[in-house]
């Protein structure tokens, strides 16, 4: 059984990676065959440039490990976070960024 505190620490470290190259891994199983999903779009199996695009799409599409930061429980604002913290008896982790138009949540930071 996973230790929630340990998973939390791992994911937070990964968030820190946005600013540095410190690595962290949160191993989540690769989703089942994505090419099968692409085939589910109904394209012919052969001789179709659409298939090439969908295969490229699947190869670029991030896997769950790449998206591990979204396994954290994000709130859109501190106000929302505080309301939830009070209701759920949880602490809040606040990241405050100055001199930036970016957004840590989306990754454009």
């Amino acid at each position, binding site marked *: 059984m996973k230790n929630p505190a340990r998973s939390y620490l791992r994911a937070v470290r990964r968030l820190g990676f946005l600013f540095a190259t410190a690595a962290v891994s949160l191993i989540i199983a690769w989703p089942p065959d994505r090419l099968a999903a692409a085939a589910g779009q109904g394209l012919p199996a052969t001789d179709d440039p659409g298939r090439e695009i969908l295969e490229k799409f699947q190869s*670029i599409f*991030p896997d769950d490990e790449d998206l591990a930061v979204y396994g954290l429980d994000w709130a859109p*604002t501190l106000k929302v976070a505080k309301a939830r913290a*009070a209701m759920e008896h*949880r602490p809040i982790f606040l*990241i*405050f960024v100055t001199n930036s138009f970016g957004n840590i949540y989306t990754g454009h930071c």
Partner: protein
Amino acid sequence: MTSVHTAKENLAEVEPDARKIFAESALSRDPNRLNVFLFMLDERGEVVHECHGVPGGRRSGPDRSDWSAEIAKSLEKLILPKALPPLANQSPLRSLPDLADGTASGLPAGVRIFVRQGDPSSSPRGHLPIVEVVPMKPDDWKPLAWSPETRTIEAANLRDWLVWLYPAAIRTADESKRFQKFEGSLVLEPTGRDDTSRHALLRGEIHLSKGSESQSEFEGKFEAVLTYRLNSPHLQSVRAVVEGVYLYRQRGTNPQKLRAVIESRPGEPR
């Protein structure tokens, strides 16, 4: 977890509670400060621990922190129960940006864009996707409506998607001015049908710029597979790939390889 961002020195656009926390912290007055700060709050919203937010790593110093050590300190101060109640959302990607519902017309609610930097085989940054969502109104989809004939669509029709094609970690001055010009003609070509839907491809070269050659640009290739219902011109789904180079202009030009995928949402379960 939540985050606050501002580029204004007076913090005017920051929500009041967050502004107060930062303004009253010793970090805000630290002459060594960089621009990222961490605060751990208890369930009442009271700060129990604070530290600089730029990770230390090999470049440790008074303006940086070891996140693991600081979080461990925070956890000691928080006096948490042995077991927190389970989260309401147990999904492993519970916070992944998304659009929940489609429109009443059956059109997608919008698109989700994943932007990836560099070559993932050589660049650690390439593994960290940027995720943006773009809500769409029914009229926004009209340029992509089904056509039995091949036709051309100007890239400017997709400006709300393409505006996100820039990397992370660029300077604030560059990010604050988004792309202004969206050039390129994309060919929308019907390719066939099956029992449940019709298909088309949308392909072409795109060039995005900010109005001056001294500012950053993007050059690349856009390719998409579109599906439509059999009896409606309305688009059903889109899956697009964009590959190109962000010409980052900051005292010279630094080309940065970018790849992105764009998917209509809601879509098939991941």
